[in-house]
């Protein structure tokens, strides 16, 4: 068996959170969610409805693309909706799960994809201009739940408070290379720590106080079925582009 690494644990931990029959959406720059969704469909959620920016539904790409808006994600779809249709779906409360991320993620589960303000909090002349939140400021408050993921877990990413709030919203879980956070009473709480990490490492790499209990559960290691499904879904390891 290969050693357990974040690029294996992260998509598997995300896939376990998905439910059969629900509508699930990922946006641009989302290889790990793309893999997680295809993995869940193969394992325990065959009736999950897989939505993405190309407008395809339940695509079955022969080879996974590095860009998650790629025309390759049209393969196998029997119908096509528009991006507007997808945002409308979320707006009227019918999107079950959205995958989003943040350059900064804070203790309240708020994300920053926008900017680091300049002197005196200037947002119009920022110190750092980030890519922008894409659809997140509209989706995170309207989708039934949001799963955040981030392939980096360090104190610059996981901060007490974001420098600029691109959006808050209905964040349920945050999955990182080291652990799974659950949002409980509005605050991120460690739900489980991946087998190769430790409470000490998670706290050291997190910029806010975790108040870890004496015994933190360990994320169950991947099963042989999960590993085989991951290999089948992403044999070229396209997801590594995120790590």
């Amino acid at each position, binding site marked *: 068996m290969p050693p357990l690494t974040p690029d294996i644990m992260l998509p598997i931990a995300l896939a376990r959170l998905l439910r059969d029959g629900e509508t699930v959406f990922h946006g*641009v*720059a989302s*290889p790990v969610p793309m893999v997680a969704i295809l993995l869940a469909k193969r394992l325990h959620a065959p009736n999950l409805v897989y939505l993405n*920016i*190309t*407008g*395809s539904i339940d695509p079955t790409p022969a080879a996974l693309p*590095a*860009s*998650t*808006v*790629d*025309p390759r994600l*049209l393969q196998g779809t029997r119908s*096509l909706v*528009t*991006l*507007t249709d997808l*945002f409308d779906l*979320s*707006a*009227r409360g019918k999107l079950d799960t959205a995958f989003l991320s943040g350059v900064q993620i804070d203790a309240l589960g*708020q994300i920053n*994809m*926008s*900017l680091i303000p300049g002197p005196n909090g200037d*947002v*119009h*002349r*920022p*110190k*750092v*201009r*980030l*890519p*922008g*939140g*894409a*659809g*997140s*400021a*509209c*989706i*995170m*408050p*309207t989708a039934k739940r949001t799963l955040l993921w981030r392939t980096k877990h360090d104190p610059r990413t996981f901060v007490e408070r974001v420098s*600029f*709030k*691109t*959006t*808050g*919203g209905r964040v349920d879980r945050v999955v990182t290379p080291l652990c799974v956070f659950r949002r409980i009473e509005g605050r991120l709480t460690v739900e489980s720590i991946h087998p190769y990490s430790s409470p000490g490492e998670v706290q050291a790499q997190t910029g806010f106080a975790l108040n870890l209990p004496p015994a933190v559960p360990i994320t169950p290691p991947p099963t042989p079925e999960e590993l085989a499904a991951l290999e089948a879904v992403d044999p070229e390891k396209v997801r590594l*582009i*995120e790590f």
Partner: protein
Amino acid sequence: MNNKVISLAEAVATVPNGATLALGGNTLHRSPSAAVHELIRQGKKGLNLVKTAGAYDVDILCGAGVASAVTAGFIGYENVFGMAGLYRQAVEAGRVQACEHACYSVIAGLRAAAQGVPFMPVAGLTDSDVPAAQGFRPVIDPYTGQSVVAIPAITPDVAIIHVHEADTQGNARIWGTLFEDVLMVTAARRVILTTERVVDGQTFTAQPELTTIAGFMVDMVVEAPHGAWPCSCAGLYDYDAEYLAEYVACTRTAEDFQRFLRRVTR
């Protein structure tokens, strides 16, 4: 019948400096890149670019000094090439104003324009610093008293859309994902299509429902084979990863970028 086919240079010459310009496509896919290169060649200035999610098009127009504002939800090369460095530098230096939207609020603004109303309420943006930063204001629903964010109409002076097939009157077909392109056509004051090929429109009559852009809303048609390059064009070609990697490498210093620009626009 009105033949709307003209050259790329003639069509792009009609884009005034300072225009609000909507660009079709999304990130690395079906951008009107041939027209983008022509905008640089003609030395346009002060454009406000409108797009839900842009990459090469927005980045190079920021680097070349053509854009002065970007109205968008996301600008970047996804995970493929990372951040849009020239866009980032231009915003941080104050040369380009980032009018940050959520992708859905760009759509809402375009919908307002298409529907001829001054603003469009939008769901979401309820837990965000973006409305305050951008001056998006709430309105009160006159029926329930509830508050909702109102996005001002975004009316592009010109929309440039790259399509797979168009006839001489501008009836056009896009294969695969439409993105926001049809909405841009209805929202914009003027529409320029660049097309992989000009076809005999008579061939569209068997299945007119596949023709998603109606010619009477189109002003100009430019035949531009490979016109999305270096971005992808569904069913025809992939994005040019080799070229884009070289481009991104050349955006790190001003000298390299100027040399690169001369090559692209010669």
